[in-house]
């Protein structure tokens, strides 16, 4: 038996992967890129419409009279204020206020929610559901998810949707039919661009893919892989569990755990909701100041050029986003580490997400980041900038 499973969209994505560029994600294989270089797929996200298979996300259906109580206890945002057909981006923490995962809570009706995340949550949800009148169902395998992202994504969707998707507001969702296929459409995404995520029964996923590809041709719809998505999400300043932070449930040592404040997600910690996991620790941390901060780094291109020029080489930037940790220094002393980075075609700049010790997180602070050139570990100059790197109006418009 194969070690990694394939997603419901595999029959469509597999023939498009032209150079064997697959990767593993949550037990599935998905395309890193369809082309050997992600430039065109990335460009579709920012200038046309991209179709991305994100089916490996974990999805849990939470239904019952106590669904609100359960979720409100688990996540840091105030779920009692989540209206029907609304979605919330949130973190959830352990008792010590350390982040287990980040993801989305969507309210499908009065008593039914969908929780999506990047780590398995069934056990954690069950433990928190003791004594509550609620039914938990793992919908991960039964539901396929397609991200349709880009400035023309609305135009594509309008052509196949039965209802008025154009009026769907940011972080709202609707039940509708797309090309006759029942689906949930949420105005959400990982790119900070205009975009939607489409939730569909696994067995109808291929039909939905075909319908979108056909309808989207005039809008330049392009299947895009994880490289392209990763570039967009780094520009968007979105972190990723297991890449930019360790889940508190899996961290071997304390220093690997992070609080929402340290990850730049303090805004997801509701200051006035009822009891929830980690509340006491988080309140205390809100008063104190977090020791670590997530920041954006803009890498100085001239300094990278100089490192290459020392060897008589033209400057090279990695063709795909990187995810290995890189030390970050201030005047020769390590003050943090970058966890993911890329060349941003949009900003024409190398950028990275980094964890930096206070007080070196202030925008404008000059740091250096390790940059290996010609087998030598060197340092490139970098500047702390506020996140996100990119935040277009059209995302909300």
């Amino acid at each position, binding site marked *: 038996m194969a070690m990694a499973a394939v997603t419901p969209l595999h029959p469509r994505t597999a023939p498009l992967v032209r150079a064997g560029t697959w990767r593993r994600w949550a037990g599935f294989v998905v395309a890193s890129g369809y082309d050997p270089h992600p430039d065109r797929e990335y460009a579709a996200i920012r200038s046309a419409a991209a179709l991305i298979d994100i089916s490996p996300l974990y999805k849990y259906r939470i239904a019952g009279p106590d669904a609100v109580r359960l979720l409100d206890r688990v996540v840091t945002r105030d779920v009692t204020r989540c209206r029907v057909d609304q979605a919330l981006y949130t973190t959830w923490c352990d008792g010590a206020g350390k982040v287990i995962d980040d993801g989305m809570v969507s309210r499908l009706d009065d008593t039914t929610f969908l929780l999506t995340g990047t780590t398995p949550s069934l056990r954690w949800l069950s433990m928190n559901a003791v004594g509550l009148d609620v039914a938990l169902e793992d919908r991960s395998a039964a539901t396929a998810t397609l991200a349709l992202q880009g400035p023309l994504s609305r135009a594509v969707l309008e052509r196949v949707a039965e209802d008025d998707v154009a009026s769907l507001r940011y972080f709202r969702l609707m039940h509708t039919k797309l090309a006759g296929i029942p689906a949930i459409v949420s105005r959400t995404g990982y790119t900070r661009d205009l975009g939607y995520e489409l939730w569909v029964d696994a067995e109808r996923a291929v039909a939905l893919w075909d319908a979108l590809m056909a309808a989207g041709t005039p809008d330049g719809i392009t299947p895009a892989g994880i490289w392209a998505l990763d570039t967009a999400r780094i520009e968007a300043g979105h972190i990723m569990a297991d890449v930019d932070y360790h889940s508190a449930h899996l961290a071997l040592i304390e220093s690997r755990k992070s609080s929402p404040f340290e990850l730049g997600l303090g805004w997801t910690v509701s200051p006035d909701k009822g009891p929830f996991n980690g509340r006491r620790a988080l309140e205390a941390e809100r008063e104190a100041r977090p020791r670590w901060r997530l920041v954006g780094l803009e890498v100085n291109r001239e300094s990278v050029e100089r490192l290459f020029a020392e060897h008589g080489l033209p400057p090279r930037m990695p063709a795909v986003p990187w995810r290995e940790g890189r030390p970050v220094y201030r005047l020769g002393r390590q003050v943090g580490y970058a966890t993911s980075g890329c060349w941003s075609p949009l900003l*024409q700049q190398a950028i990275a997400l980094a964890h930096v010790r206070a007080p070196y997180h202030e925008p404008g602070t000059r740091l250096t980041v390790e940059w290996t050139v010609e087998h030598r570990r060197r340092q490139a100059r970098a500047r702390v900038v506020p996140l996100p790197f990119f935040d277009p109006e059209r995302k909300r418009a």
Partner: protein
Amino acid sequence: MSASRYDAIVIGAGHSGLVAAAYLARAGLRTLVLERRPVVGGAAVTEEVFPGFRFSVFSYVVSLLRPEIIRELDLPRHGLRILPLESTFTPLENGDYLVTWADPDETRREVYRHSPRDADALPLFDRLMQQMALAVKPILDMVPPDPTSLAPSDVAGMLRLGKHFRSLGPERFHALYRLLTMSAADFLDEWFEFDPLKATKSASGIIGSFLGPRSPGSAYVLLHHYMGEIDGAFRAWGFQQGGTGAVSEAIASAARAFGAEIRTSAPVARVLVRDGRAYGVALESGDEFEARVVVSGLDPRRTFTELVDPKELPDDLIEAVRRYRFRGSSGKVNLALDGLPDFTCLPGPGPHLRGAISISPSVEYLERAYDDAKYGEFSRSPYMDIVIPSLIDPTMAPTGKHVMSIFVQYAPYHVNGGWTDEKREAFGDAVIDTLSRFAPNLKSLILHRQVLTPADIERITGLSEGSIFQGELALQQLFFLRPAPAWAKYSTPIRGYWQCGSGTHPGGGIMGASGRLAARRILASWG
């Protein structure tokens, strides 16, 4: 008078003038840009030529824009968005085709099909061209020193240059010398055997010049176009989203952010000169603006013989400008299409349509196209460099429709009998007929067509003789000879009067380097 008094006035809002203005304003100079047309951009403009169809009317791809300009002017924040242009597709006359793709393995497999030997040569050739581009790159970023001058800055510049060339080592230096003097076809003959590959590569050596692939000097233009490749690692090449006009808009927006004022529909009649010193400009409307420096982004002919009275200038300069070769040799056909062209050799709407389409089936084809031009006719079967931007940026055309940009060579400015409306349409027909041989459905798709001859390019953009580089990129008018000996450092014999267009070093393409270097010289002399 204070309201119309500036530190610097830039004539012409082409990309070079805008770059110069941005740098001057950035340094705190009160800067005014005056543009004759209602739009900024010069030859880098996007216009809705037919309702719903937007075209990069003249210049159509971006590959050479200097990375330091992108960075220093913060152009991405002002709207610079480069979308990838990844392949070159050459349909052949025998029903086959050649495509070079973004991926080297894929390209190798495709070239191997035609010539296993060439497939091996390709990465070696690319390496050499990268080395050559690296060898030339520092020259692009320097103010050309005058080799005949003993001024300390010139001597220092020549020393720096000598040191640089020595550091190349004999092998690379000799290769560079050969590139500077040979024809593109001869140079490529040393590397490849598959003729369509040579033809397609040599085509970038003839763009914008009145040269054939077998004319000496064409190899350098090949290198000029390769310059984008070494920065191509940063993928700063391809289409601008919204057309090349959006590049100009981004530079204009940066200039405004630094405080520059840009006036369109404000044609300058002449530069005001008193006692050998420029002190302002007079518009055709009669309005006058005063400034400490006046910078012309126009080509050398207009800069030295139209904006000022040639009597203000030394005879040898006027003579050099008279000899300076423009010889516009290319035209442009912009098509609004109802659908995608279907090429007989590679049918269907595949990825080959998303890159460049090169009508360059053989070196002989190109040379014959040049033969027509040599004798004063437009090419009956011309070389074409075609792109369909709407495939990558669908907002350029109404949904499901497309815009096609066809760069055509040769269309000599000095055509026999001069350019007339009939001749323009005959030229357009020759282009469509030739392309239809490879894509027979083309004619049935055409909703509108715009045909631009070098005479039209001159009339609309002001580029003398329709020369897209403000003068050919020929060795005798490059570097310290561009545009004229002793006047290659952006200054002119008239104090306070400067030049910054593509007619100065390092010349053509949407590069911006001359605007930046000129601004640097002006600021250095500001005192």
